């Protein structure tokens, strides 16, 4: 039930628990609050009669609360068309926490997505399954390094100060500048339900990026786009200046079959040195392969789920049901296992990765 609604803001319900915060400062200017900052709850059912169910279910679609509005015409994917800085977070889920990957994704969707998508410079917020039910993957893209870094810190903060504390711990985090991004001419639709493949690579110590790296990645992208269902492909490298350098590379296909197909095409090309040093890498740090659970774009209007108790976000968002996730994860795990095996073999014979 929704009583007090202002567009894009937290809804105050007419019945059910509403959570309020109260604080009083320690000075006239905004700063730390006094020790007695507190929270309290209020159910407005005493003041407002309960509305019948039909009234709530008949809310016109165009009046439903929207927490996110498009702020760009076409999705920026990185140079040459746009600047883009991407931060990624691969989290481990504590087996004893009682949370599964869907639970973690839901928590971020409810609590973090409304914040991060509303910030200036926002480009993208994506969550995906990884092929391993004990990990979850998230990435943000912003138009400046500072904002992307802030998003990364805020995500850590969200975990450290919320219900996910001690539930998830960092596995692999990156902060990168996108070198080059390729995709459909003008992406305006979320890739939720599509298949995301990500890789974090570590270069050899002292690696010098070749002058023609853009041309090489462009050649790779030309091949990538020959596979039906390719939506995008992008490459980024660390923006933190650490050594050895790490690269984050990712692509999205409409289906897993497309992703598998491009691997079968590219792996032998990489192995025979077609792409030179850019694929001569020291170590595969992390890899994920899985369906995208949510995907908020600056170019794509999206109604974030309203945070109401008892509401099953998965039904509204049409995310896979737990059984589907499990089946998918088993299959994906096998797929990742095969990929790992192939990559390990390639590494042993020369440390070459295809993309």
């Amino acid at each position, binding site marked *: 039930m929704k009583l007090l609604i202002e567009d894009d803001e937290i809804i105050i319900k007419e019945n059910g628990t509403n959570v309020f915060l109260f604080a009083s400062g320690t000075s006239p200017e905004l700063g730390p609050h006094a020790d007695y900052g507190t929270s309290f709850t209020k159910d407005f059912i005493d*003041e407002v009669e309960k509305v019948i169910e039909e009234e709530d279910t008949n809310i016109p679609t165009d009046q439903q609360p929207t927490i996110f509005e498009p702020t760009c015409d076409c999705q920026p994917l990185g140079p040459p068309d746009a600047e883009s800085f991407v931060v990624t977070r691969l989290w481990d889920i504590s087996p004893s926490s009682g949370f599964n990957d869907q639970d973690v994704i839901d928590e971020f969707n409810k*609590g973090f997505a409304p914040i991060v998508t509303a910030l200036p410079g926002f480009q993208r917020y994506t969550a995906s399954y990884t092929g391993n039910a004990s990990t979850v993957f998230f990435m943000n893209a912003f138009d400046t390094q500072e904002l992307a870094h802030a998003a990364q810190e805020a995500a850590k903060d969200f975990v450290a100060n919320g219900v996910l504390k001690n539930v998830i711990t960092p596995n692999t985090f990156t902060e990168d500048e996108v070198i080059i991004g390729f995709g459909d001419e003008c992406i305006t639709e979320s890739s939720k339900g599509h298949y995301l493949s990500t890789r974090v690579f570590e270069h050899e110590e002292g690696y010098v990026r070749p002058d023609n790296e853009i041309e090489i990645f462009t050649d790779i992208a030309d091949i990538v786009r020959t596979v039906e269902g390719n939506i995008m492909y992008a490459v980024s490298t660390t923006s933190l200046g650490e050594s050895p350098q790490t690269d984050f590379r990712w692509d999205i296909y409409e289906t897993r079959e497309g992703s598998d197909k491009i691997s079968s095409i590219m792996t032998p090309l990489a192995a025979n040195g077609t792409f030179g040093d850019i694929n001569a890498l020291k170590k595969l740090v992390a890899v994920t392969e899985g369906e995208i659970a949510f995907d908020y774009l600056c170019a794509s209007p999206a109604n974030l789920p309203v*945070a109401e108790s008892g509401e099953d976000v998965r039904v509204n968002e049409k995310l896979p049901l737990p059984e589907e996730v499990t089946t998918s994860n088993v299959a994906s795990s096998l797929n990742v296992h095969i990929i790992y095996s192939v990559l390990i073999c390639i590494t042993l014979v020369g440390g070459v990765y295809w993309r």
Partner: protein
Amino acid sequence: MTKLDKTTMKLILSLIASCIAANVVATTPICPPSLTNSINISNGTNHYEGAILNYAVVPSSPSDANNGILCGRLEVLNNDGSWVAIGMSRNYNMFGSEAIIGLPIDTLSADGATKQNTVMKYKLGGYTVGYEVGGWGVYYMAEEKQTLTNTSLVLEETENGDELMIMSFTKVSKRCFVCQKSKIQ
């Protein structure tokens, strides 16, 4: 004009006035003079004696006009003239919440000017003030979101000689599907 005519005329005018009153289709909701509903914040998770939120929910008029309002008055006793805030949260956490904050001294405006006794809407995107870290922290909502009306922040003295910081505001409550059934007006 005869006396009977005057009486008849009064009756007619009275009927016309009644009809007009009964057919008013759109009025702007206003806060009642007295906000009779209240929440004693002392019952919150941290015991604090001396904070009360008085409020009234004024539904849209007519019911589909999307012009309802929430009238609020936060009273905080003896806070030494410091800022006060009431927030809405999804999960009890400050992070990710939204708040109405009354600042006796407001130094956060983009033009650098210091203002007094402002009452504005804020995003609570962190635990620091303002935009230090790329827009994170506690910061103003965008200008188009600053929809509060009838705002005031005053420090009064009670009959007992205590200081009482009072923050008043009227917040948009865009929809109300139960207006015609509401017990409150």
